[in-house]
């Protein structure tokens, strides 16, 4: 068995099995546990009820991101429930000795932005968080996945989880995306092909020249949305791009430790003849910008596509679903997605709120104005991203264009902090979910890249960002 060739997922899994399952799940060791205010209070209450503590506070890191206001650094601006959740997390961290990056801390931010930014996220680790977008960290060749609150309690108590191993799914992106086409377009294309449940039970390993060409921000965008295909996790084998990103980060190894880490990380690749349970190939070299038109991320299409006609769908359940989705979104079959009127543009979320995303958006905003009647929010992923963006003058570009420049947080991706759509409003959003009401009750979300979102902001409608980039002389 040990000589059998293995995938990257197999290797990380094998390295973390404390007790191998036989008729039972395996006990899997967790290297890094990220926690936030929304999915942890009940877990800490559970620990107290049992009279047990946190096994490894040194492997636990906390931040507040989901309910934090973006208009200020005062929790009260997000309401009393937010204040209480944040206060509770702070008290729990203090009691159990867990480092907490709370409001006002220069390292605070969206949990999936600060993990990589601080160098906490490293190749070969197992990383969990009570948040489905934990898959983001897989961009570094870490096995990272979202868990429920009961499992948060398990990890706090034991630093372990009970897990059944999943299946291996190879996703090859063939070809460097053309200018104006981004990682967001690549992952929306994949989800539109395999479906919202297409990855269920599997860990996706992204590979190919399309992935090699991406920076870490792009790889994070792709891994982030693995869950939108139902996958347990997404992975990219670490390479020089990964190592260069990590070098010098606050919690990354340094000196001799760095050299030893590089040796260890070099082995984190799938064996050449490793077996996958499933494979899919996407021609990323010929991709167009993508945008979602329905009420789940698989309902996405090329930006110049027309709204599909449900009548053409053979399966009755799928036909009913599409009909309901188009009705919710206010779209008529056959009309173009281009030129659809947009009310709100949201640039942010753990999917697309890092420096590369803000630079891309700024390249479209620069010298232009947000279209009249459109509200545009730019919400950096972390306070460090915010500071860096300000150092580069990007805040001026956004503000001069008429966009709102905010404090960091999850914001309108999940609409828990007061940043939300009004009923019936349509957004173009760089976030990850277009489920009904996700950005506010009866709000209508179209998912797209930062370039496409910025293009919508300055034109007031769904637009192909390449036409705006081409006009730059």
């Amino acid at each position: 068995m040990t000589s059998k060739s293995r995938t990257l997922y197999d290797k990380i899994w094998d390295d973390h099995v404390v007790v191998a399952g036989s008729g039972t799940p395996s006990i899997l060791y967790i290297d890094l546990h990220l926690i936030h205010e929304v999915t942890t209070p009940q877990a800490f209450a559970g620990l107290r009820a049992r009279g047990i503590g946190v096994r490894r506070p040194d492997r636990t890191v906390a931040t507040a991101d989901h309910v934090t206001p973006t208009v200020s650094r005062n929790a009260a601006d997000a309401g009393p429930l937010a204040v209480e959740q944040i206060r509770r997390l702070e008290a729990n961290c203090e009691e159990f000795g867990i480092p907490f990056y709370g409001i006002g801390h220069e390292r605070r931010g969206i949990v999936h932005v600060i993990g990589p930014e601080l160098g906490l996220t490293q190749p070969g680790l197992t990383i969990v968080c009570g948040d489905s977008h934990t898959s983001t960290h897989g961009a570094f060749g870490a096995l990272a996945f979202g868990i429920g609150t009961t499992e948060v309690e398990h990890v706090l108590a034991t630093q372990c989880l009970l897990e059944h191993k999943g299946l291996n799914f190879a996703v090859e992106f063939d070809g460097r995306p053309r200018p104006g086409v981004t990682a967001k377009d690549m992952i929306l294309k994949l989800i539109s092909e395999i479906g919202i449940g297409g990855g269920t039970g599997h860990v996706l390993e992204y590979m190919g020249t399309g992935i090699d060409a991406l920076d870490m921000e792009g790889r994070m965008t792709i891994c982030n949305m693995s869950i939108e295909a139902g996958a347990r996790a997404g992975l990219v084998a670490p390479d020089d791009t990964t190592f260069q990103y990590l070098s010098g980060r606050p919690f990354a190894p340094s000196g001799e430790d760095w050299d030893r880490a590089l040796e260890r990380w070099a082995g984190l690749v799938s064996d050449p003849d490793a077996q996958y349970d499933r494979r899919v190939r996407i021609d990323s070299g010929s991709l167009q910008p993508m945008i979602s038109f329905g009420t789940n991320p698989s309902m996405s299409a090329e930006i110049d596509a027309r709204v599909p006609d449900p009548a053409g769908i053979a399966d009755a359940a799928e036909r009913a679903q599409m009909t309901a989705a188009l009705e919710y979104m206010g779209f008529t079959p056959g009309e173009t997605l281009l030129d659809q009127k947009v009310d709100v543009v949201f640039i942010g979320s753990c999917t697309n709120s890092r420096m590369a995303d803000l630079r891309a958006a700024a390249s479209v905003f620069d010298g232009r104005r947000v279209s009249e009647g459109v509200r545009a929010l730019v919400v950096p992923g972390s306070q460090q991203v915010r500071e860096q963006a300000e150092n580069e003058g990007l805040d001026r570009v956004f503000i001069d264009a008429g966009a709102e420049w905010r404090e960091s947080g999850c914001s309108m991706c999940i609409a828990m902090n007061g940043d939300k759509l009004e009923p019936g409003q349509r957004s173009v959003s760089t976030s990850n979910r277009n489920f009904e009401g996700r950005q506010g009750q009866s709000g209508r979300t179209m998912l797209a890249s930062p370039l496409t979102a910025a293009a919508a902001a300055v034109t007031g409608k769904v637009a192909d960002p390449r036409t705006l980039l081409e006009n730059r002389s």
Partner: protein
Amino acid sequence: MMKFQTLTSPASCLDRDDIDTDQIIPARFLRTTERTGLGAHLFEDWRYDAGGHPKPGFPLNQTGANDARVLIGGRNFGCGSSREHAVWSLLDFGIRAVIAQGFADIFRKNALRNGLLPIDVDAADHAACLAAAGAGRAFTIDLEARRVMAEGVAFGFDVDPFARTCMLDGVDELEYILKHEDRIAAFERER
């Protein structure tokens, strides 16, 4: 963990595919520090109109829906976020078993860890379940035997054996992991 052995109850039908956790419990209700009380907001935006009045056509607003301990969904039930609040809200409403053509991984795990039984069915049994539920028939679910029975419905289902034992006995998984504390300590020492 609440014990689950056998259950006899009418079933509610919500025959839609890809029911996501944002529909089961919208995010604005996650600003709580408790597990309880979420049933009031189960499927809030499908159940109530903008004025907070029950939508008459919605299945969980039908007469008798409050008595149903079984919910029948479509394909890929519980996709989306990891919020365990989705499971808590179903349980708080009174649902103890969901019958669907597949579940999202995190939802399934959250359900099993809370005594909410996810039951996978194929298309034919799914159709039979919908028909029986629509006719108001009672469903009997026997976890020990791994069987679902109702008028015109009789099928066996698979469930992770470990989770099944935990549910039958009402034992939770944390105790099991804690029993291996010496192995965890050894693992930490050796790496």
